[in-house]
């Protein structure tokens, strides 16, 4: 264990190294590039490969290839590059390739403001690709958590053989704080299950946890990595029964691990009459406002989502008895839609603060006060 002073982007890179990253492919894009540059300097010296591909499409496909070659692989990007990775996310889902994709959010749509922050991609991270699937998504709120949740993202990816998104933003990326880095053995690291050696006749046949052991290229398994809907042999299966079985399993294997995947933090919730819900960088300001409101005599609680997808709806519902729920986020109101559904018996309000900077306490207070 050692303590360093680091930015959020550096913390993500360090978290990936701690988790066992061996292959990084990326394409430069603000404000994520420091992750790439930091790994290019450091991971290469640790025996890993870091390569700049011709675009983000190539980057995500390369890390899926690397994942199937048996290593932990990651890419990092921002909005425009993330959009280009849409089809690749789907490929990682259907081929059950554990990969981690970091999206450092910046203001959009389109080129937007490359150097400024946003939380507008929270639903894009969830439903980037076509088809039915679940892609877990983690949203750290400080430098330490950028490190911790990147490790968790790798663990989740390896546990359920699925792509996992780490969703930070320009504020977290470029913010410097103290960071505790763990040595091997000081933190849980999960590795994918492997099949016994020799040809694997049913490479997509799951164990009881619905996750099949992963045949790795080059070990004589004779596996076919198949992007078409396939049966347990990996053969194309354009039949409703096979389609249902595969797509349901791909979804259920993630949901079964909801206890492990879903994380949240609550503060002042026991007696709260108003619950403030937030996540990521914006939660930093909302945390302050919750305290401010308490000073003013308003019993405010604070719920911070660390996992943005999938959500543990029961846990969220049980986190507070507050009659009023106010969702504060740096977009026009996206996670609000989930909270409105989950807290359907309460008054739920959206308090968006659309800002290119970290929302200030004054801005958040004004947005919240409207609903008090």
């Amino acid at each position, binding site marked *: 264990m050692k303590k360093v002073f680091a930015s959020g982007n550096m913390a993500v890179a360090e978290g990936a190294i701690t988790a066992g990253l061996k292959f990084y492919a990326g394409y430069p894009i603000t404000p994520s590039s420091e992750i790439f540059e930091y790994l290019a300097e450091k991971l290469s010296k640790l025996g890993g490969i870091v390569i700049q591909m011709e675009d983000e*499409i*190539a980057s995500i496909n390369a890390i899926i*290839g690397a*994942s199937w070659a048996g290593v932990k692989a990651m890419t990092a990007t921002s909005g425009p590059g993330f959009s280009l990775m849409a089809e690749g996310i789907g490929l990682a889902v259907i081929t059950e390739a554990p990969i981690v994709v970091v999206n450092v959010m910046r203001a959009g749509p389109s080129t937007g403001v490359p150097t400024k922050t946003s939380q507008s991609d929270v639903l894009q991270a969830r439903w980037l690709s076509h088809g039915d699937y679940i892609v877990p998504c983690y949203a750290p709120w400080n430098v330490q958590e950028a490190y911790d949740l990147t490790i968790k993202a790798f663990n989740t990816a390896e546990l359920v053989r699925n792509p996992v998104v780490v969703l930070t933003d320009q504020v977290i990326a470029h913010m410097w704080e103290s960071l505790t880095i763990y040595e091997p053995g000081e933190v849980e690291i999960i590795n994918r299950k492997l099949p016994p050696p020799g040809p694997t006749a049913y490479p997509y046949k799951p164990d009881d946890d619905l996750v099949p052991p992963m045949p790795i290229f080059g070990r004589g398994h004779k596996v076919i990595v198949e992007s078409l809907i396939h049966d347990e042999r990996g053969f194309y299966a354009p039949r409703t029964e096979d389609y249902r079985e595969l797509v349901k399993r791909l979804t259920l294997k993630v949901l079964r691990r909801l206890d492990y995947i879903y994380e949240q933090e609550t503060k002042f919730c026991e007696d709260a009459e108003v619950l403030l819900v937030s996540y990521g960088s914006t939660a930093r300001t909302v945390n302050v406002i919750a305290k401010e409101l308490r000073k003013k005599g308003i019993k405010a609680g604070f719920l911070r989502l660390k996992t943005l997808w999938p959500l543990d709806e029961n846990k969220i519902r049980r986190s507070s008895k507050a009659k009023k729920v106010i969702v504060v986020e740096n977009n026009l109101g996206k996670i609000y839609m989930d909270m409105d559904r989950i807290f359907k018996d309460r008054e739920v309000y959206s308090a968006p603060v659309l800002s290119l900077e970290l929302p200030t306490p004054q801005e958040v207070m004004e947005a919240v006060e409207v609903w008090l």
Partner: protein
Amino acid sequence: MAVVVKPQIHPLDKYLRTERLPTIYCPGCGIGIALGAFMRAIDRRVNEGTLDLNKVIWVTGIGCTARSVFYPWVDGAHVLHGRAIAFAMGAVLANPELLAIVVGGDGDIAGIGGNHLIHAARRNADMIVVMITNFVYAMTGGQVAPTTPIGVRTTTTPHGNPEYPMNAVKLVASLNANYVARASVTTPHYIEQYFYKALGMRGFRFIEVVSTCPEIYGRHIGLRDPLEMFLELKKRVKYKPRPSIEEAEIDWEKGIVIGEFIERNNPSLLDILFKGVSK
């Protein structure tokens, strides 16, 4: 663990997933001829002890040719349209012991995947890329391809293709590839010879195989009969022993030049990345 039992009738069956035969290919399609030639080259390498089939990955995108991944008895990946090269690059960089064979059609490799083709060749990335050219998007029903000659009527150019076609051999030769060759399904011995040679090389190896598609392309150009189309292609194919890259013509009127255009032994991407100590 289930035991894998494969019936064997043909001597090359040991390299195939025979349980998936017959292939999906239409009567008269050239892809089967090319696959046969690849398997014979693989057989020679295996018998010589210069190829470990456990290290081979057969990577394809989407299209008729891409479905060739269904058949070889090696690790395979049937990935996204155009992205086979990017996928293969990640796999080989992550495990340099792997030998990546990327096989795709002209739409897959030169159309949607054109950017990856360019950059993999520029890097001299370690892989064999085989492009089977049938001048059309066949699996989707006969749309214009980047290789379709000007003037040809396709389903998306019903008034005639207004665009000039791409010469992929010239494109790849202009970059850093270690090997650039073209053969035709009318000359399967050259496909076998070039593929055999490519299997023993390092760096980026590109082989274009000109093929016949009587079912879709033949319909567009009035050569619906498989044999007739094969013979018409055969007439146009001109083998040259040491052709220059300027001679690399691929033109239905002027002729299709086959041969080995580029052959060199430049350090590959892996050689440079690992400073010659890889493997």
